[in-house]
């Protein structure tokens, strides 16, 4: 019997020993695609600025170099390259309301006042191409890379606009090192031992296209994939369409 207890002790010690890393906390980012403050459901129609109806078929982007700043002002690096794909998740209201969970890795105990990341991939990664990565990772997939630019496609926003008379299948793809910016957002995060924490990333797709007084004429420019002015402006609106809570 004595031996039995010894065994139980050994076993629990082993289990405890194995699970030790779980004591540190994890940070999740819950991504909520929206349109004018409403949950964005792929394939569903929303009013565009000019009275047309807009629907989205694709919304995806890389989110890279995530870091958080602690009370001492130090930046703690979290996950390096993440891929967010809303079309395979926000296909009904329930999912759009729940948000798409993205694990950003482990975060040490402490208080944090900022998070920063970039939409796209940093130059050190953009100088590579899918053949440098496993085909099962986002960076290893040809459709996330544009051989003509020698660049990863940082973001894709695609869909359909129609007013009953005109119709435009649109696709806006961003890329190139010049478009990649790391932006900082204020947060208030208190991480205590063993407790997982999460932040909300809200992305209002209406704001990608401008505002009531000035908006993209999608019928005029339905397909843009380049690093020119159009996409530079589009991505600067993309960054401001993004809020962290």
């Amino acid at each position: 019997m004595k031996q039995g207890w010894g065994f139980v002790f050994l076993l629990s010690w082993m289990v405890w020993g194995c699970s030790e890393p779980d004591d540190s906390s994890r940070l999740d980012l819950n991504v909520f695609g929206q349109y004018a403050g409403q949950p964005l459901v792929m394939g569903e129609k929303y009013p565009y600025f000019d009275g047309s109806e807009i629907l989205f078929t694709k919304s995806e982007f890389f989110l890279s170099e995530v870091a958080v700043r602690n009370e001492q002002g130090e930046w703690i690096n979290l996950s390096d390259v993440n891929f967010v794909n809303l079309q395979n998740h926000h296909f009904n209201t329930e999912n759009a309301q729940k948000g798409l969970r993205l694990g950003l890795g482990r975060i040490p105990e402490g208080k944090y006042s900022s998070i920063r990341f970039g939409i796209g991939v940093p130059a050190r990664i953009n100088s590579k191409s899918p053949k440098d990565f496993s085909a099962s990772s986002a960076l290893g997939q040809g459709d996330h890379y544009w051989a003509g630019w020698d660049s990863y496609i940082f973001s894709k926003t695609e869909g359909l606009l129609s007013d009953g008379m005109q119709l435009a299948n649109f696709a806006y793809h961003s890329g190139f090192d010049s478009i990649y910016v790391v932006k900082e957002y204020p947060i208030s995060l208190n991480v205590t031992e063993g407790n997982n924490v999460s932040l909300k990333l809200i992305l209002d797709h209406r704001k990608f296209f401008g505002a009531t007084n000035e908006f993209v004429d999608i019928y005029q420019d339905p397909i843009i994939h380049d690093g020119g002015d159009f996409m530079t402006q589009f991505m600067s609106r993309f960054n401001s369409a993004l809020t962290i809570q």
Partner: protein
Amino acid sequence: MSFRSLSYMILACLVVTAYACNQEGDEGDLRNIAYEPRDYPLVTPRSFGPLPESPDNPMTYDGVQLGRHLFYDPILSSDSSQSCSSCHKPEFAFTDGKAFSTGVTGQTGTRSSMSLLNVAYFTKGMFWDGRSATLETQALEPVENPIELHDSWPNVEKKLRKHPKYPELFRKAFGISSKSEITRDLAAKAMAQFQKILLTGGNSRYVKQLNGETFFDPDEQDGMEMYFNTNPALPDAQCGHCHTAPTFSSSDYFNNGLDSAGKPEDFKDPGRGAVTGIPLDYGRFKATTLFNWHLTAPYMHDGRFATIEEVMDHYTLHVKQAPNLDPNVANLKLNTRQRNKVIAFLKTLIDTSYLQNPDIFSPF
């Protein structure tokens, strides 16, 4: 009878039964056959990345050889009339050159056979609609499909266990110790290993040009610039968005405008939608590889186009509207001369050097 003698009797019965089974060929001990796994000398096309890893099914020389036997052996079909290779022939880039394949019962399906070249690089599912997650799960399907091999796995397993040669091949490939360990899962793993050696592309003129070993003529160059949208002076052909380098295919699913549909249910073949249930996935299909397209006609999931010219006409003149029509095929404006230049570029994606690997052919 004492307890002891009863025990002896039971033991004797067991031995006799085991022996009987053995005679039937199911329990045969294979441990006297050497099991010495070694790597298959695989050469991936030089412009590609590493093969996606499959930790559950490491590739070995003998695994590939077993898969090769199974792939070409009509033993997998109910009436021994067909094998995988009936619909996937090496000389047609492992398609069958028909719009719809015919199975053992003479029934035809509603989809065209697919090229198996570079199939190892697809990471988001097998078949036109991706309904099978991996090559290992895919290989289980044709055997029981009534419009393909139309047999049953329990029956095929029995045939393989009784076969004079297969037990040895399974032993060499997977180290099994008895015939009874021959299962459908191991057969599927072996066929997956075999299909992973079906690679092409590294000796195409396209890749030679990338490496500075050859130069494109002006038409090929213009065609490539349209394919990848790199020349503002030429119209975009957008092909490179879906048939992406380096494999010239994509693991993803798209609606490339074959049929018009107001709502998802309107698509005659639901494609990816039947697998995911996501409305926008209806009418989406896998963007297959364009390496060796000259061998895969007729084209598309239903083989509706006989020639590459018809394919180009489709993309530039006849794309049909649907809510999920991919924007990249919605507005292509290429004149005949430009279409021909894209075709000139497509011809640089021909690489038949895969036919020089003797291991891809029938061992029989």
